[in-house]
């Protein structure tokens, strides 16, 4: 389940729905990671662009990887503006076993940060400024660059 929302996430409602949907499925561990916009550097909020086709393939690959361990991954993410102290991101793992869940959530969140085709902008004075310094090149970037 990959869920994209316009604007901030309704975190309690999403966490509750996922919990209740998976309750009958005998997972012993449920670990959501909730990302919230911090007030820092004078920003009013963040804004997000998403390229859905590649995000979906990235997510399907993770679903398959989790399934091999008997686990399940889900994700919710915002598109557009999310103000300070609102949340833009929930990634969660369900697993029969604790160790698998704790290791998967770490790897899943880190791989998301490194690879998911999502671009972040600071909102300052109503302007949308690409968060270049905090962004990460996807593995293999620069392929079309001039050879030096």
């Amino acid at each position: 389940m990959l869920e994209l929302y316009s604007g901030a996430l309704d975190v309690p409602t999403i966490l509750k729905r996922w919990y209740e949907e998976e309750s009958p499925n005998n997972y012993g561990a449920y670990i959501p990671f909730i990302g919230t916009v911090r007030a820092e550097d004078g920003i009013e909020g963040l804004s997000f662009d998403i390229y859905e086709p590649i995000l979906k393939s990235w997510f399907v690959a993770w679903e398959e990887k989790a399934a091999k361990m008997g686990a399940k991954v889900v994700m919710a993410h915002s598109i557009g503006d999310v103000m300070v102290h609102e949340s833009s991101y929930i990634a969660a793992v369900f697993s029969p076993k604790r160790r698998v869940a704790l290791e998967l959530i770490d790897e899943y969140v880190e791989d998301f940060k490194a690879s998911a085709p999502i671009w972040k902008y600071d909102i300052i004075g109503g302007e949308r400024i690409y968060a270049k310094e905090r962004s990460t090149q996807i593995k293999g970037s620069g392929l079309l660059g001039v050879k030096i």
Partner: protein
Amino acid sequence: MVRIEFLGPIQRESLEIEAHTLGDVADILNQDQELKEWIATSAVAVNDTLVSSLDVVLKDGDKISLLPPVCGG
């Protein structure tokens, strides 16, 4: 003809160009000085699949996407 799409912050309209390999695409795009910095830091997808080699053979109607550095979450 193949179509080049610039994602996220690159802020460019998509282009239609004549190209038979990704090498051709590289040659054409690098003529644009303003694009060079983006090209040096962007990943490349052909028809929404990320690629890691310039030797990909392109066919008419293919979509090539440039993905600049990401920061989800």
